[in-house]
């Protein structure tokens, strides 16, 4: 008997009992979907939790402070630093040259007064109709629009091309386009200053603010410069003190306005984010940076500790999925035992016309494998869809709470492993019935 004959016989049997085949496949689908969904959700949750611990930055990220190290505390995740020690470009260069350092991202900031937008006063020709969209609402023109005080803060310069290494989590909107000098993102402190809760973060996306700086005096008059910028997103950032984040170009421009030399002076470095090549090398890099003269902080101890607990959760969830898969395997075995019982006469005829034990074994194994493959494919796809649905619901909840959402991460190994694993489980489950069928003596089978 050829492979093709075995396949034909197996598929014919599947088509002859479609309901039984469908129910068997369904059990595999549900089991593999459950396992796949659990593993996807567990992996995504682990990534999100660890990302939260690192404030959205790299797990191997180290925050360098403009302070001297405190020898008594330097081994702690978040030590109390020593006396101030400004970070210089030379220090940044020295840190960049350290072994095991992958990236060094200096953090700069410029002081500004933030002027949120004002509606034109009702009654002026700029706003002729009271209540018109965007017009002031005050009934007393002497009062002017009701506004919160201007916000004295800093605009932080960040290289968003390395945003994955920075302790920045996008909460609403998007990040500024590359190199933009007119787009900024606000952080939660800005929302708080305007009296807006994090859950309403999306409301400020698209608003325009004026960034006010006092130009260096070079004449008899004083000049206040207003640069308009659009808030395109809201982030949670832990880089340094400041309520707005922009590309460094905008920060340099703001700083240059205030500098008598016309911006030739170096923009002060408020801090730096250093990314070690591996999580395990964070401690040695921190020690090297301390030797250069700066205090550092990194939640590596916390990350490792939480990571271990999350691994236990993964194991438990995998166990639940495997139990479901075992139940599915029993279903396959049961279906094949039934098939063997029903087809004893057919097996006997096959053997009588020359089929060998291994030919019969092949037919039943192929039938089991087919059920497993179909169940695995459909189950894996269903599992990913379920995980995506759960992630969407989780994101809706997280965004409503003003928190960063999760990004579903499905490793390529999971769908491949889901299909192959289901097939293997089905083959194992079908091995005993197939073996029993192959061992049936021809005469006994025909007489049955």
């Amino acid at each position: 008997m050829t492979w093709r004959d075995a396949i034909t016989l197996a598929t014919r049997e599947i088509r002859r009992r479609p309901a039984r085949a469908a129910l068997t496949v369904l059990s595999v689908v549900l089991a593999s979907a459950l396992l796949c969904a659990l593993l996807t959700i567990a992996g995504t949750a682990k990534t999100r939790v660890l990302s939260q611990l690192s404030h959205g930055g790299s797990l191997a990220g180290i925050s360098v402070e403009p302070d001297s190290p405190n020898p008594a505390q330097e081994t702690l995740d978040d030590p109390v630093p020593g006396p101030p020690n400004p970070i210089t470009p030379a220090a940044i260069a020295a840190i960049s040259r350290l072994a095991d350092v992958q990236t060094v991202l200096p953090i700069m900031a410029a002081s500004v007064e933030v002027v949120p937008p004002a509606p034109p006063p009702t009654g002026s020709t700029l706003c002729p109709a009271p209540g018109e969209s965007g017009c002031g609402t005050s009934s007393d023109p002497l009062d002017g629009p009701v506004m919160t005080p201007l916000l004295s803060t800093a605009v932080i310069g960040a290289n968003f091309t390395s945003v994955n290494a920075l302790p920045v989590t996008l909460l609403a909107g998007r990040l500024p386009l590359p190199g933009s000098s007119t787009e900024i993102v606000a952080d939660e402190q800005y929302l708080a200053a305007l009296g807006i809760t994090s859950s309403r973060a999306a409301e400020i996306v698209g608003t325009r603010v004026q960034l006010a700086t006092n130009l260096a005096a070079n004449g008899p008059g004083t000049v206040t410069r207003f640069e308009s910028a659009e808030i395109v997103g809201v982030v949670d950032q832990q880089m340094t003190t400041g309520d707005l984040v922009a590309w460094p170009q905008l920060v340099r421009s703001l700083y240059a306005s205030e500098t008598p030399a016309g911006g030739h002076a170096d923009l002060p470095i408020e801090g730096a984010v250093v990314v070690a090549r591996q999580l395990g090398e964070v401690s040695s890099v921190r020690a090297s940076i301390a030797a250069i003269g700066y205090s550092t902080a990194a939640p590596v101890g916390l990350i490792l500790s939480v990571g271990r607990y999350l691994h236990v959760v993964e194991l438990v969830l995998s166990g639940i999925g495997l139990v479901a898969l075992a139940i599915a395997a029993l279903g396959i075995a049961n279906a094949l035992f039934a098939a063997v019982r029903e087809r004893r006469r057919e097996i006997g005829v096959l053997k009588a016309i020359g089929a060998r034990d291994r030919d019969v074994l092949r037919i039943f194994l192929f039938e089991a494998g087919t059920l497993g493959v179909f169940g695995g494919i459909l189950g894996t796809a269903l599992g990913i869809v379920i995980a995506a649905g759960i992630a969407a619901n989780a994101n809706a909840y997280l965004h409503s709470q003003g928190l960063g959402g999760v990004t579903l991460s499905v490793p390529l190994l999971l769908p491949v492993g889901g299909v192959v694993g289901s097939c293997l489980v089905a083959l194992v489950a079908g091995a005993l019935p197939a073996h029993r069928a192959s061992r049936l003596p021809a005469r006994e089978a025909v007489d049955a």
Partner: protein
Amino acid sequence: MRRSAGRLEKVLATAAAAAVVVGLSGCGAGGGDFSGPAPVRTGAAVTYVSISESPPAGSVDVRASWPLLFESTSLPRWALTDELVLPDGWVFSEGAVLDQLLALRPTVVTLVAGLPELSEGLAPGSFAAALRRLLGALRGARVPTVLVANLLPSSGPATTPTQDATVAAYNKAIAAACAAEGAGLVNADALFTQALRQGKAVLGPGDALTALGQGLLASGFRSVLGHRPVSR
């Protein structure tokens, strides 16, 4: 038998491909959502300079000040706004002011003229000559658009005929200088006089602009700006 086996093989291959596609589609990382060109404030952008003798906002919220209203309602989206405040007026430090002003490389200039000079008792003729020198210098520096507002009326106690005549002489000098040097004239005097007659609270204590007055002045500048060029 052969045909059905072939069909099964096709089904298996299609299903496997679908599974891989579904799997891969779920593997996309979040990352930054960068698309399209970045809006960048280029060197050719509009730089608007407002010149006044006191911070334009006065007692009103800076957001409702007329330069910011004018900028947001009348100028292109990413204009720079520089508020040049000269407490002593510009006539008395004319040369230094001009250097400071041109260093800002303005493309649109608005000037609320004359109040400190009037207070200091500067003769209208001297004021007119100084204003013409300033406007001429701005024209020489190829500043595309210069707009000048004349003196506002007073909402306080009745003024004397002499004071009225002086204000009128200043406003006449301002109009003449604008006409001679191609600057736009905002007749703030007429705008505010009409508003006051209509009972609108455009001026507050000490003749400071109210929020409504800020909007009125901004709309006055906007109407005179019209289609004048705002960049080089």
